[in-house]
């Protein structure tokens, strides 16, 4: 398994601004993932981040809106750019660990855009 921390745990932001969310893992991992969890909806994968390469985005998510950095094997950031109220959600990072495809999740960042 893996222990994952995220910063900030929550934030309230004005529309049109950007927020960068940090994800730190207690061990080196190859694959890191960013998800969005909206009220009443399923967890939805935003992108997969490999160290040393560009992130791979899922359909409906673009790099200009959600730029991701992955500078080393224990850290990643997700930026939510030019925010609107529709971006209000919980953002979660996860890592694959344990050898059986299972992913372990951070505590999440609750974002409210006003």
């Amino acid at each position, binding site marked *: 398994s893996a222990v994952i921390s995220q910063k900030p745990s929550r934030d309230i932001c004005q529309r049109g601004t950007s927020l960068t969310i940090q994800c730190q893992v207690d061990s080196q991992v190859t694959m890191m993932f960013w998800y969005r969890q909206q009220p009443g909806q399923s967890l939805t994968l935003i992108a997969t981040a490999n160290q040393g390469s560009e992130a791979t985005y899922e359909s409906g998510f673009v790099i200009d809106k959600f730029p991701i950095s992955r500078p080393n094997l224990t850290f990643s950031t997700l930026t939510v750019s030019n925010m609107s109220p529709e971006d209000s959600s919980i953002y979660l990072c996860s890592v694959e660990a344990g050898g059986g*495809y299972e992913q372990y999740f951070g505590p999440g960042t609750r974002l409210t855009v006003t």
Partner: protein
Amino acid sequence: EDQVTQSPEALRLQEGESSSLNCSYTVSGLRGLFWYRQDPGKGPEFLFTLYSAGEEKEKERLKATLTKKESFLHITAPKPEDSATYLCAVLGGGGSNYKLTFGKGTLLTVNP
């Protein structure tokens, strides 16, 4: 496209009253089915991985089973601390190698 449907959306039990949660799925080449527990304000906590039909996994009062079309999470003699949202997810063989497709979850409340 992989799909996961969980039922019921919400379930209220009395302490000690056993029941089951359902996860129906369609997937191209199942590589794993996962159960998670999520408490309010926290990230999902990994519970089980099931890989093939007929497989079963147990942990304390929880038992997960898998068929070719669905999975069940059986809760035996639940306690109030079992109250949480239970999420089911699948990993298929097509498309993105690591994309988990989640259901919307079942909110379980166990009353003392």
